């Protein structure tokens, strides 16, 4: 446990999920420990890093050589104390990387499979809501074999959501889906996270999804933890940025909805000043987070005029770190918030930017896509 606590984020926050594992497979060793607060814990890392293996251990499908897993204080596994709850007693909804639908059951029966075991009997409304969200209405009487790839993964998702679990494991649940469909499903995940307070372990290769959903991010490489912490820290860490993919590095800043302006723009108050976004973001007073890609931030020494960009925030340069040549990451302080900008070395030289200097960060309203507005 000591090890797990070492890399826990928000050491003060209540630990919701505790995972400490050691397991050898031929040619691959998994060895990591983390304890995460409630919310979404994202597992991120290259193919073959061990993400599915971790998730399987939490589900009880893999019994690690050594390990301890606890959810919300309840111990699911403790090899030391010889505790190992069988999978069906763990009440964990698992969206598998491969869909694993029951081929002999209709889509409806697949979706309802877990209902019988749910401690609270879910009402039909919940079923209808999930079916509608996943666009499965027309498929309910079909068999899995006749579904398309994306349809299968949607049914698998619905099946796990409808079993009233106390925790969700999702292994790349949206990989087979198009952007529009993802856009419909992600808000539901956010509601599960925020309203239902369901702990979620979320595997994804898409940094946008991770940034949007994750409370904590664990970066796994070759079976070991490369980084772990609150999403905002991991995602704005210039050292970890390359692991997230070039386009995808970026910081997350907090804000509060101030209201909607007459022309439809939403106004968000952040520690760095007001930010305007071109779509509804919620009720006034609602807390939210904005993910700003490092590549989308332009810097100016003076306050530029006559620009179509609406959001021009005063900032101070806190760090300049070389990235892949010929570019650098510039970390900016907007009051207590951190922003990450990626610039060419030429621009840094031309503008004479140095650490400690005051400048303006320019963010196009349009470059903060709605998928980068995170629910809290």
């Amino acid at each position, binding site marked *: 446990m000591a090890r797990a606590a070492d890399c826990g984020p928000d050491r003060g926050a209540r630990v919701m999920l505790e995972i400490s594992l050691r397991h050898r497979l031929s040619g691959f060793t998994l060895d990591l420990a983390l304890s995460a607060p409630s919310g979404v814990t994202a597992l991120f890392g290259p193919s073959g890093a061990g993400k599915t293996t971790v998730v399987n251990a939490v*589900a*009880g*499908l893999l019994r690690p050589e050594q390990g301890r897993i606890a959810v919300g204080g309840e111990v699911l596994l403790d090899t030391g104390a010889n505790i190992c709850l*069988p*999978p*069906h007693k*763990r*009440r*964990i*909804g*698992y969206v*598998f990387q*491969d869909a*694993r639908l*029951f*081929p*002999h*059951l209709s889509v409806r029966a697949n979706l309802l*499979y*877990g209902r*019988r*075991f*749910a401690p609270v009997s879910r009402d039909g409304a919940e079923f209808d809501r999930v079916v509608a969200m996943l666009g499965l209405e027309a498929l309910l009487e*079909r*068999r*899995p*074999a*006749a*579904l398309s790839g994306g349809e299968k993964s949607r049914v698998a998702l619905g*099946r*796990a959501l409808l*079993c009233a679990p106390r925790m969700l494991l999702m292994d790349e649940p949206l990989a087979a889906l198009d952007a529009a469909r993802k856009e419909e499903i992600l808000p539901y995940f956010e509601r599960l996270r925020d309203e239902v307070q369901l702990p979620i372990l979320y595997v994804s290769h898409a940094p946008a999804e991770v940034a949007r959903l994750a409370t904590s991010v664990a970066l796994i490489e070759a079976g070991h933890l490369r980084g772990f912490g609150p999403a905002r820290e991991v995602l704005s860490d210039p050292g970890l940025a390359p692991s997230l993919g070039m386009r995808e590095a970026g910081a997350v800043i907090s804000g509060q909805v101030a209201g909607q302006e007459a022309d439809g723009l939403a106004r968000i108050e952040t520690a760095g000043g007001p930010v305007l976004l071109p779509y509804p973001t919620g009720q006034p007073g609602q807390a939210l987070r904005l993910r700003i890609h490092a590549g989308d931030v332009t810097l100016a020494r003076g306050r530029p005029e006559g620009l179509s960009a609406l959001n021009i925030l005063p900032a101070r340069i806190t760090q300049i770190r070389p990235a892949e040549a010929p570019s650098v990451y510039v970390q900016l302080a907007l009051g207590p918030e951190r922003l990450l900008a990626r610039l060419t070395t030429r621009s840094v030289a031309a503008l004479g930017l140095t650490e400690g200097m005051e400048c303006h960060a320019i963010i196009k309203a349009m470059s903060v896509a709605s998928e980068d507005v995170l629910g809290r």
Partner: protein
Amino acid sequence: MNWLSGQDWQAVALSLKVAGWATALSLPPGIFVAYALARWRFAGRSIVNGLVHLPLILPPVVTGYLLLIGFAPNGPIGGALAKIGLTLAFTWKGAALAAGVMAFPLMVRAIRLAIEAVDPKLEEAAATLGASRAWVFATVTLPLIAPGVLAGAITAYAKAMGEFGATITFVSNIPGQTQTLPLAIYSQLQVPGGEADAARLVVISVTLALGALLVSEWLARRIAARIAGRG
């Protein structure tokens, strides 16, 4: 119908009863043993496997002889059963036992192959949804092996319809009680010139078994079509 004698009809009815019961009663243990052999690793697994195959390996007469020793009214098991009012020797129930025992290895083989073809990942998925082992078996494994169970049952049924050696040795040939079709056919064949009578019974026997076969094939295809999403 004067084509068949009353005794022939008795044999037909009896064969159907015996084969039906033999199949129905050996199905649950057949599924259980097949599951255990396919999925569990336990000491004595090979022994169980060997025992199950024994009726296939032994000449049927020997199996019948062993049944006779064990289940005769004064035999070790037969005596015990007699106390609860169950007499197997020389009754149709004994014929069903003999047919069931002879058909058992065929049934277990088919079901076991089907179980081994089930992807354990589906069973795991069911478990994560909260289903206990028994429930997983009933709602996932069993439906998925249904074609194999059907194949096993029909093979067993066909074998039970044709079983001769063990039956006549164990329960002998009592018209109306233990004289199944194969025994009737055999009796006819032992009489010089009895071929024509035997042939009639063979036709009936084959018709009955093939009818069951066709029905089972049709059922199996329907199940497979449902799983393949065409049903």
